């Protein structure tokens, strides 16, 4: 991480006093016991207590905090619900952790313009809950949707299982209100489609809290489809499952969701929730189709015959919503099921062209042997997003380091076959040093210049996304461990 500013830490009392002029005292947490719960997000392998935690209550307060921090050169790490999996809201020792937890209200439900205006701390699922009685929903559904916040979704450009048909966060929001590091409050987009000039809304979506703090989000809502059905299909090999996925897409079908699991995960999840999965299968597909009733029936029939052609060993079609949700229950329990199998697991997140699946899974199996760590694979087959879950025991010596190396090797391979480092979890601190696998110096420097254009002193969420050493981009990957580098004095971005 960036070099810790000890001088700044020594001024903690002064900083807290200044913050008290902006915020109510009860919204400032500065005692070690109070800041400890915020030392990590959902990437719990990394921990660091911040200097102070603040809970602003409105946009003006956010603006004042950022403006004060900008002038006083204090780093700020924004945090939503803390469910991020890449350490994007990992605090720095000399930073203020800015929590949006008090921004938890839905401001406006606008059926006429088919949108909802919400504060960033509102959870993803509660947006759907607020409009479902009118038959509407918000499409992106990351698996943490019960807890993750919509502001965090925008910061990470979260996806979910329906991304192929309905897009990710960036395709489903219309506008935001943001505060830049200098305290400027801006509205980007609104209730219209697209906006003129540079697509700043598109730029800040997925910028992982490095460019601005989000204080309001306007999301698009959609009418629920008339009919939704799912098919549960087993295969005797990964290849057959992969071929079936490719053929479904090539035949002109865009499923609402298409999920694939390998044998390890089929067993783990079936043990965990008794979802009725085909336990003898080497791979399993859940194909969900939605639309008008006749359309869904037609498509299910097509999927059925494509599956048979690709040597499926079992096919179950959901008869009702209850059964369909049961098909999903296993998939949605993939993480806790792995938690049941090993003391710790590490979830990776790469995206690959669908057709490369068998190749990539073979490589993962080889690496699993090499590192002597078991792995289970969940795959958003529709959009090519792969989540290998590496199981390890943190109490074993060097096991986290081995796991991280294993994970990094998987992601490098994803890039090698034409994919990307992260599909929906973000780069954060986790994949920072891998950015050079995908981008060269020019690419990274251009991105860093954009960062500087909006946050001149690089105070907002520093140490995330971009390699700490500028030289990294020129010399290939350099592993920086716990901030111990050979060249601590080289300027950081």
């Amino acid at each position, binding site marked *: 991480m960036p070099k810790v500013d000890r001088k700044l830490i020594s001024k903690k009392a002064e900083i807290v006093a200044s913050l008290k002029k902006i915020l109510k005292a009860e919204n400032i947490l500065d005692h070690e016991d109070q800041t400890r719960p915020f030392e990590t997000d959902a990437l719990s392998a990394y921990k660091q207590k911040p200097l102070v935690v603040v809970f602003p209550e409105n946009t003006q307060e956010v603006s004042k905090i950022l403006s004060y921090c900008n002038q006083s050169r204090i780093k700020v790490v924004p945090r939503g619900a803390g469910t991020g999996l890449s350490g994007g809201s990992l605090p720095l020792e000399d930073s203020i952790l800015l929590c949006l937890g008090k921004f938890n209200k839905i401001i406006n439900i606008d059926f006429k313009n088919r949108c909802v205006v919400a504060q960033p701390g509102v959870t993803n699922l509660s947006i759907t809950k607020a409009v479902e009685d009118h038959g509407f929903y918000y499409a992106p559904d990351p698996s943490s949707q019960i807890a993750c916040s919509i502001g965090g979704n925008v910061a990470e450009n979260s996806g979910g299982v329906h991304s192929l048909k309905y897009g*990710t966060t960036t395709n489903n929001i219309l506008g935001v209100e943001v505060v830049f590091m200098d305290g400027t409050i801006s509205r980007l987009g609104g209730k219209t489609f697209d906006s003129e000039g540079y*697509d700043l809304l598109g*730029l800040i979506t*997925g910028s992982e809290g490095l460019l601005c703090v989000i204080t309001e989000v306007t999301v698009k809502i959609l009418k629920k489809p008339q009919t939704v059905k799912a098919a549960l299909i087993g295969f005797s090999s990964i290849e057959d499952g992969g071929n079936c996925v490719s053929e479904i897409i090539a035949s*002109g079908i865009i499923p609402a969701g298409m999920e694939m699991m390998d044998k390890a995960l089929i067993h783990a999840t079936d043990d965990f929730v008794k979802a009725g999965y085909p336990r003898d299968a080497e791979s399993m597909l859940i194909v969900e189709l939605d639309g*008008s009733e006749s*359309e869904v029936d037609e498509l299910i029939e097509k999927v059925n015959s494509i599956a048979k052609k690709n040597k499926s060993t079992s096919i179950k079609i959901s008869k009702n919503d209850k059964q369909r949700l049961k098909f999903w229950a296993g998939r949605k329990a993939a993480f806790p099921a792995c938690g049941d199998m090993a003391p710790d697991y590490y979830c990776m997140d790469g995206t690959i*062209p669908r057709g490369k699946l068998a190749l990539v899974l073979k490589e993962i199996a080889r690496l699993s042997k090499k590192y002597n760590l078991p792995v289970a694979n969940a795959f958003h087959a529709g959009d090519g997003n792969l989540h290998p879950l590496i199981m390890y025991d943190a109490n074993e010596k060097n096991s986290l380091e081995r796991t991280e190396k294993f994970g990094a090797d998987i992601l490098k391979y994803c890039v090698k076959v034409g994919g990307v480092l992260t599909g929906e979890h973000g780069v954060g601190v986790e994949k920072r040093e891998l950015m050079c696998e995908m981008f060269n110096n020019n690419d990274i420097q251009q991105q860093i210049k954009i960062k500087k254009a*909006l946050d001149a002193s690089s105070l907002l969420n520093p140490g995330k996304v971009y390699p700490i050493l500028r030289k990294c981009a020129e010399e290939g990957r350099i592993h920086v461990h716990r901030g111990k580098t050979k060249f601590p004095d080289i300027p950081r971005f």
Partner: protein
Amino acid sequence: MSIEEKQNSLTSQDSDSIEYPLNEKEVSSFIKKFYKSNFPVELIGTGSKKKIGKPLQCAKTLSLSKLNGIVEYLPEELYIKVKAATPIQKIEEELKKNKQQLAFEPIDFGNLLNGKSDYGTAAGQVACNISGPRRFKVGSVRDHLLGFRGVNGRGEIIKSGGVVVKNVTGYDLSKLMCGSYGTLAALTEVTFKVLPAPDAGNTLIIHNQKIETALYFLDKAISSSNDVSGAIFLPKEQDVTGFKMNIENTFKLNDLKQDGSITAIRVEGSKKSIEQRMKNLVNELKISNHNISILESLQSEIFWTKVKNLDFFLSTNNSIIRIVIPPSECVNLVYQMSNKFRYYLDWGGALMWMEAFELSEEMFESIRKKVVRLGGYVTMIKNSDYLPFVEDVFTINSDRFNISQNIKKSFDPKRILNPGKMYTGI
């Protein structure tokens, strides 16, 4: 533009100033050269949309027309990677062979702006980010650009994105490219997401409705589960001299009755599904007793192609304005318009295309004020003989201007790429 730049511009306009780089490397060396010598440069493809935005005074023109060709098309992976100036028509023909399409419906601005059909190039579509009637359902160009390669204002080759739909690796610079009118980078390669083309598309037409009821129907149709992919209102105009917009002359379709205004709703998919959804729509909108008709596949396709390509306005010399607003505010805006305007509504009322007769700059700015107050924005798409130039073609506020200026600097510190095309100072 600085004084020095302007001088350079004037000196070099005498010489042969169009360059035709053959590849990305050459684009980079040209721009590096221009960067060193402070030569502002205009980037063009086929020039189909050159007239949108402010006219440029540049020392050099860089035609990307030689960067033409499909690099990689994998139908089962749902993407096509092309060189920047690959004609959109060529891409669409290739996709058609595999029953796929660019779902954002690229618009042919050639006829309107230059009197000759021209869909322009892949990069041109990206640079302008203006999408057709399906936008409210599937998104615009920005939602279909998966990745790009290009050259920034320092002559450096940069890239962002990839070939997959789910990608959060680094900032999403593809979004910034969309609608930047070549002011940030010279694109050299773009990758579009492609989607299966529907088997068929039918159009339900409700005749002779007033704007209020038309918008009610469109809203209800889009807010239903019937997966509507087109929703427009074409009002019946009074004959007033000076206007060219004419619905009756535009559509000569056997099954289209000429009976007052047209409220049209498109449904696409398999034949069976269309049939069911059409039935649902008629029931849900309670219009079985209304004056309605249905255009089947071929006629429906012709209908929407004409709508998309702004065929109503083709022979006009009047100003053409594009207004995007929240659909709920659309009626409000129409009420505030004088008889100097003709319009039609797309995207269920979220988009208004307008023909303006004898439009003055003050009138244009007064429309902009009204639209901005209602939460929308305005673009001058075509200047008229009456008003050949407007100062502010696009809408922006001071906050966003400042941010945009910083973003521009980060890509193009000397402002050599299409300077002033969008906004003075950017």
